[in-house]
């Protein structure tokens, strides 16, 4: 009788704590999602509605025209293309280069390999501010200032060190015996890299590509350092331009923000697991 009573009390207590958890975590999530909901709603309201009732009021209109305005008149279409023209090659080339270097450093007895590894990581940890002026002058000197290749170059050069470090840690954990068996079978370094190590590194590569996509896509600082012409700017810089062009037309600015955020949110939702794994790869090792 008494045991049944205590177990009933325990059950009630557990239910109560579960309800408490959901109330707390739910409220927190709601608070977190509120700004996102606000920008979505604002992007669908008409200018007159916002002007008459204020940004914080309940919406009284619905239009998709803001997106058209940001997309066509605001130049976001071109900016999005620019962003993808920079981001996609950057992700591919950086990861290819980093995988090569990590392979060499982790699978071969190479003189100075630890020093090289840490030198490369150190380069990525430098505050970019120390590089801004020399990089903008260097790209002028190389004749690529104000072109997308300059932005691609600096993104690759600055990013590669971190990916080498992460991939090195991953490749190091692949058993030696696999490689030795391949050597016995007469495989050269290229075959070992391409047929054995790279396929085994796929989880890390997937995680890093999801991560680097958002990092490069979201960059502002490098873009405004090596680019000058408005029509060449990627979407982050164009978004600031949009804000200047449509001062206080929050409906258009909100639509622009939604357009600028959509690709990375899509990548996140599609590759959520990889994405989170990527953040941990570099850190909790």
């Amino acid at each position: 009788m008494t045991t049944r009573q205590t177990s009933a009390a325990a059950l009630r207590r557990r239910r109560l704590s579960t309800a408490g958890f959901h109330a707390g975590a739910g409220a927190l999530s709601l608070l977190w999602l509120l700004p996102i909901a606000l920008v979505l709603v604002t992007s669908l309201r008409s200018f007159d509605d916002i002007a008459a009732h204020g940004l914080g009021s309940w919406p009284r209109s619905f239009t998709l025209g803001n997106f058209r305005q940001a997309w066509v008149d605001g130049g976001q279409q071109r900016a999005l293309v620019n962003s993808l023209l920079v981001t996609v090659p950057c992700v591919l080339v950086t990861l290819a280069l980093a995988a090569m270097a990590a392979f060499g450093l982790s699978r071969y007895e190479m003189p100075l390999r630890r020093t090289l590894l840490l030198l490369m990581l150190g380069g990525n940890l430098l505050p970019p501010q120390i590089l801004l002026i020399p990089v903008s002058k260097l790209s002028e000197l190389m004749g690529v200032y104000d072109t997308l290749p300059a932005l691609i170059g600096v993104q690759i050069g600055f990013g590669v060190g971190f990916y080498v470090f992460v991939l090195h840690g991953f490749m190091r954990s692949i058993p030696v015996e696999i490689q030795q068996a391949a050597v016995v079978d007469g495989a050269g370094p290229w075959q070992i890299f391409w047929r054995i190590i790279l396929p085994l590194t796929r989880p890390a590569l997937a995680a890093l590509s999801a991560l680097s996509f958002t990092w490069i896509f979201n960059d502002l600082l490098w873009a405004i350092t090596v680019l000058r012409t408005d029509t060449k700017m990627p979407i982050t810089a164009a978004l600031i331009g949009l804000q200047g062009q449509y001062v206080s037309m929050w409906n258009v600015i909100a639509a622009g923000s939604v357009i600028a955020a959509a690709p990375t949110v899509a990548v996140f939702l599609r590759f959520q697991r990889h994405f989170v794994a990527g953040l941990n790869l570099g850190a909790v090792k």
Partner: protein
Amino acid sequence: MAVLTTAARKTTPVPTPPRGRRAGGPRRTPPLVLAFVLVPLLAEAVWVFWPALQGFYLALTSWDGVSAPRFVGLANFREMLHDDIFRTAALDTVLWLVLFGGLSALLGLATALLLQQERRGVGFYRAALFLPVVFSLVATALVWQAIYQPDGVLNQLLQAVGLGSLRHAWLADQDTALYAVIVPALWRQIGYVMVLYLAGLKGIDPALYEAAKVDGAGRWQSFRHVTLPQLRGVNAVVLSVIVIDSLRSFDVVWSLTRGGPYHSSELLSTYMYSTAFQSLRLGYGSALAVVIFLLAFGVIASYLVRAFREAD
């Protein structure tokens, strides 16, 4: 407690195998593999190492970007001593480090503790907190700018709850601009720190908590004596990430206030950028960058020492 500490010691990593065995491959490095390492290194040398060296040299010059740089020694650094804007920017950077860094670490840990248990619905809560991490800071900033507007949500909310007297042009007021900028930065960073801590919490051996329970430890005690010590590794990473991120912070301030009004939300990074690319004082800008570098260096060095030990 005795049980606890021995158990804790047991989870420390097993001794590493002798050096040299791990690489396994041939003793002589094939030329192709050498090229594999040298090509990426060259890319980084061109875009990072060489510019960095130039940056240090330029800090000792006066340069308008057109005529040749003129060597002036430490004059730029002497000028900083009397530069009020520099002082504001340095103080704001420290404040940013403490507030943005400290709060994102604390709240990141708190949310991770709240959401660490696998139970129904927790995935949604995690995703909600994590979603802002994928936004660009520019988009984040614009969202919050709409909230901070005179007719924006924040002011209307204050009005609605009867605190209308607190209504404010949050970003246009020197007293509130910096804090108004920190909030969106936090909104975005907390989810990231939470992920790091979630992974760290997952890595803690449940046996440690059992042992603590057997020893009669309460919730607070097992947090204090099991969780916190076990998170030491993650804490070091979070600290490095936070300091480096704080010193790099640029996008969110630049898109919200550009350091204004009257430099009240100026950080060293925004001051460096506007000095170099708007005032075209490239030498002084480089010297400011060197200051940022020196502040970051301590953290980078300790991070590298950690990485050095692990890379072995």
